[in-house]
């Protein structure tokens, strides 16, 4: 019986309970999902904040850099030449534009400023252009004008309107001096050198030791090309300066027009002296003046 009864003992493994338990463990509860969602949302928020902060910092830094580059560009333009082309917006990283959302700095304002400045510079240069005419020896074929400054030749070209070449010089007295001159023989009179000066020297005239005899005689043109600037600049020279009307110079092509002026002056003085000494009235007056002076001196000494 016991054996039979023992055979009635429930020997089932009750596996269904286990299966149920396992199924519950595989599917996370809704609360866990909600927690996970909250966690990722918080992370998302934190990332967004960090990104915003980083973008702000980046924008500030970028703005500083742009300002610095603009400033250096402007100083470069002031000193030398037209600016380099601005970096094309296409070259800007699309990401930085999109993410940073920074308004790309408009280059139109800078360009306008630059154009205005350039125009002003051009007008200043135009104002200071002066033309000076120098008389040279007919045999002299060089394009060298001795005006007291040192010049460095940087070019020469043949122009259509004039058969003689035009030489370009830059002032070599000071590195910062931007004065340039063009020298070309006059079409009307090949013995006249036409020097066109652009700008104004920012330094005093170099030593005039060698300049006393070596300077060309300059002729200021009677027309409108000659400016007071040129006249003032030349008047500072210690050499005899003659102002000759070009209309006259056209007519006078004889060798007398090429006489050296110091010689003429010397001749005039000699002529005046000889004519005075030959005049008996003058010698008598001179003798009277001298004796009178001597008499006066003797009288006061006594």
């Amino acid at each position, binding site marked *: 019986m016991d054996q039979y009864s023992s055979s009635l003992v429930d020997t089932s493994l009750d596996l269904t309970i286990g299966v149920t338990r396992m199924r519950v463990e595989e599917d996370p509860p809704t609360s866990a*999902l909600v927690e996970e*969602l909250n966690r*990722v949302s918080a992370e*998302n928020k934190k990332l967004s904040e960090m*990104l915003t902060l980083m*973008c702000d910092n*980046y924008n500030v830094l970028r703005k500083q*850099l742009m300002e610095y580059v603009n400033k250096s560009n402007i100083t470069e333009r002031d000193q030398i030449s037209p600016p380099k082309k601005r970096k094309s917006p296409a070259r800007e990283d699309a990401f930085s534009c999109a*993410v940073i959302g920074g308004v790309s700095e408009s280059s139109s304002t800078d360009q306008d400023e630059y154009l205005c400045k350039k125009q002003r510079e051009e007008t200043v240069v135009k104002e200071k252009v002066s033309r000076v005419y120098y008389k040279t020896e007919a045999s002299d074929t060089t394009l060298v004008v001795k005006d007291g400054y040192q010049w460095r030749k940087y070019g020469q070209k043949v122009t259509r309107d004039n058969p003689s070449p035009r030489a370009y010089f830059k002032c070599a007295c000071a590195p910062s001096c931007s004065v340039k001159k063009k020298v070309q023989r006059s079409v009307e009179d090949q013995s006249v050198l036409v020097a066109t000066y652009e700008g104004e020297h920012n330094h005093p005239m170099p030593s005039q030791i060698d300049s006393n005899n070596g300077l060309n005689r300059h002729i200021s043109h009677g027309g409108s090309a000659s400016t007071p600037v040129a006249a003032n600049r030349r008047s500072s020279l210690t050499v005899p300066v003659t102002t000759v009307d070009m209309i006259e110079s056209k007519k006078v092509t004889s060798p007398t027009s090429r006489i050296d002026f110091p010689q003429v002056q010397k001749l005039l003085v000699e002529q005046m002296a000889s004519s005075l000494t030959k005049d008996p009235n003058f010698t008598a007056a001179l003798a009277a003046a001298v004796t009178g002076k001597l008499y006066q001196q003797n009288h006061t000494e006594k």
Partner: protein
Amino acid sequence: EKRNMLQDEINRVNSENKKLTEMLARVCEKYYALNNLME
């Protein structure tokens, strides 16, 4: 159904986080490059 919705939302936010992390990395890279340039 609610769990599915939650799971979808988690996936979406995770994907967004991944993108944000990538963007942040790039901005950081640019920032430090610019910073080095300035220095």
